[in-house]
């Protein structure tokens, strides 16, 4: 990449040029959505009463929580069948779907996606890990839209989700994401951050155009990342992305925060993230409405029903107690395959009953929560401000410099531009702490705080911290206990 990218809104001409030359030609189904105004008009009708943005606004007004399960199968029939099953079992009306596309689609390998569809038909099973939205095109996506009672959002996250989002939005789904670092770190290998940002400026602009023309789009602004990242890094990613999306004109963002499993830390992370998104977007003169969601644990899950249910419950309780708008759900199938309809219906029932049981209970503020928030906030502000400084007030320029220099860094990603000097570890309360902060500019008091917390684990386990623990932590929630056969037999 030689082209220098900045945080700047795409002009209408530039947008149209990219659409025509880069995006729609990616696959043959692009030609069915050439007329953008027609698409927007159709979307307006199709998403009537099923708008992600408005559903969230309504939930906030009513003081309730939404549930957000996930589903996606290689064939449209399977996908519709699954959605309807789960909706009937308790998702509707206060729910929203995340529908996966498959990983070939995400890598723009539509030939292999086509082969996967064929293969799925032959085998009578879903041989792809999601619904290949681009291969099926806009009319099939509209069929799904009509078959469901609740808002649909698309998860087709990777380097380039533009065509997938175009099709989804034109079908009355909520398709778009506010992404940059999130994608590089989670799913990419070779793409430079500049190029990823350029691609996603288009997608954000697309969402903004729909919004401006009367179809409010609420993008997902996620920090699932590698599934094992410090809360400060997660929060930084979301706040920086919020600025990128806002510049393109996005008015609603759903902050999808990957949870690390510590109640206080996770809630603190989400509160700080939302607060800083508001503060920084305002500072730059944008006007954006933010909703919050908790994305369930993204490390290895246990391969047994009861342990999975413990995960499902704890991952719903954190968002409820944290007063996030939405609890995203995984299922008992997590360790094996993408969720089945039965598995997802089970999670919805479990989470719904938690909502019944818990009423409007919330986690109160405490000294501990204030301290945790203060520490995360300090870390994130330091990073944000360093970016803005390095970028001369331009977040995009600063982020790119930060990654290059390694002071924006995380641990375990396939992305070659990440330095990977950072090392994180769980403390005794399973909060994620820096074991080694690498080159990130962690304020001394934050580093001391993390060290102190890790010392607590050292004390609890009665052995010094070492690299082996870092490795073990990756599977802390997936290893099942050994059976304990009776030592004394009944007589």
């Amino acid at each position: 990449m030689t082209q220098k990218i900045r945080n700047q809104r795409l002009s209408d001409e530039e947008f149209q040029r990219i659409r025509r030359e880069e995006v729609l030609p990616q696959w043959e189904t692009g030609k069915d959505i050439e007329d953008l105004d027609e698409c927007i008009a159709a979307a307006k009708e199709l998403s009537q009463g099923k708008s992600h943005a408005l559903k969230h606004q309504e939930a906030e007004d009513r003081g309730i929580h939404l549930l957000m399960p996930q589903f996606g199968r290689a064939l449209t029939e399977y996908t519709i069948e699954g959605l309807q099953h789960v909706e009937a079992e308790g998702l509707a009306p206060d729910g929203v779907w995340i529908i996966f596309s498959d990983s070939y689609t995400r890598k723009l390998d539509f030939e292999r996606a086509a082969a996967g569809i064929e293969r799925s038909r032959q085998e009578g099973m879903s041989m792809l890990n999601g619904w290949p939205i681009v291969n099926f095109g806009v009319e099939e996506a509209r069929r799904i839209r009509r078959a469901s009672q609740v808002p649909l959002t698309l998860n087709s996250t990777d380097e380039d989700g533009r065509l997938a989002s175009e099709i989804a939005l034109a079908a009355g789904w909520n398709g778009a994401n506010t992404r940059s670092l999130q994608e590089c770190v989670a799913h990419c290998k070779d793409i430079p951050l500049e190029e990823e940002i350029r691609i996603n400026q288009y997608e954000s602009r697309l969402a903004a155009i729909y919004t401006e023309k009367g179809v409010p789009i609420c993008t997902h602004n996620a920090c699932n990342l590698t599934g094992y990242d410090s809360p400060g890094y997660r929060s930084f990613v979301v706040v920086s992305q919020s600025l990128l999306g806002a510049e393109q004109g996005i008015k609603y963002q759903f902050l999808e925060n990957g949870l690390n499993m510590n109640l206080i830390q996770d809630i603190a992370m989400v509160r700080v993230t939302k607060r800083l998104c508001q503060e920084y977007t305002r500072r730059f003169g944008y006007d954006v409405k933010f909703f919050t969601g908790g994305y369930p644990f993204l490390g290895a899950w246990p391969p047994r029903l009861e342990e999975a249910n413990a995960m499902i419950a704890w991952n719903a309780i954190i968002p409820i107690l944290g007063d996030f708008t939405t609890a995203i759900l995984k299922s008992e199938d997590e360790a094996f395959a993408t969720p089945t309809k039965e598995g997802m219906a089970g999670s919805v029932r479990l989470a719904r009953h938690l909502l019944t049981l818990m009423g409007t209970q919330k986690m109160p503020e405490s000294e501990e929560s204030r301290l945790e928030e203060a520490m995360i906030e300090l870390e994130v502000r330091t990073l944000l401000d360093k970016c803005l400084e390095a970028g001369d007030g331009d977040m995009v320029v600063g982020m790119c410099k930060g990654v290059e220099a390694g002071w924006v860094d995380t641990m375990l990603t396939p992305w070659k531009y990440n330095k990977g000097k950072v090392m994180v570890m769980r403390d005794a309360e399973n909060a994620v702490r820096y074991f080694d902060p690498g080159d990130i500019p962690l304020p001394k008091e934050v580093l001391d705080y993390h060290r102190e917390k890790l010392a607590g684990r050292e004390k609890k386990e009665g052995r010094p911290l070492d690299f082996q623990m870092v490795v073990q932590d990756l599977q802390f929630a997936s290893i099942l206990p050994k059976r304990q056969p009776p030592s004394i037999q009944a007589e």
Partner: protein
Amino acid sequence: MKRRHVNKAVVIGTIGADAHMIGGWVLEKAFREAGFTVAFLGAVVPQQEFINAAIEIDADAILVSSMYGMGLLDCEGLRDKCIEAGLDDILLYVGGTVAAPIELEKNWPEIERRFREIGFDRAFPNTCTAEEAVQALKTDLGLE
């Protein structure tokens, strides 16, 4: 199978468009600890890269990780390419959550059958620990 000399070297990587690399990373650590030379290719690795690396380090085995569900599709043809490259007797292992349909993923004998059919020597579910993986290879190489 007639075994060639043993070099205690393995190639590890995640195949296809698959971005998961934590499992491979854990395997790498375990194999190094057990005294193996490891070429760790990370994620999103095309078939040919596995073969190039295997030639380069004179590997005894290629350990293909596949987590995202399209393992069966992505692994087809790897054995043929190995043979083409003169790696006739290299061990091919696959491991992870290899099949998107849960009906298949929970029917492990069928998974093994399918992978054997396309020339793999062993297939491991994702409950396999790194230590078990090391142990299996040592056994197959006659090292223990």
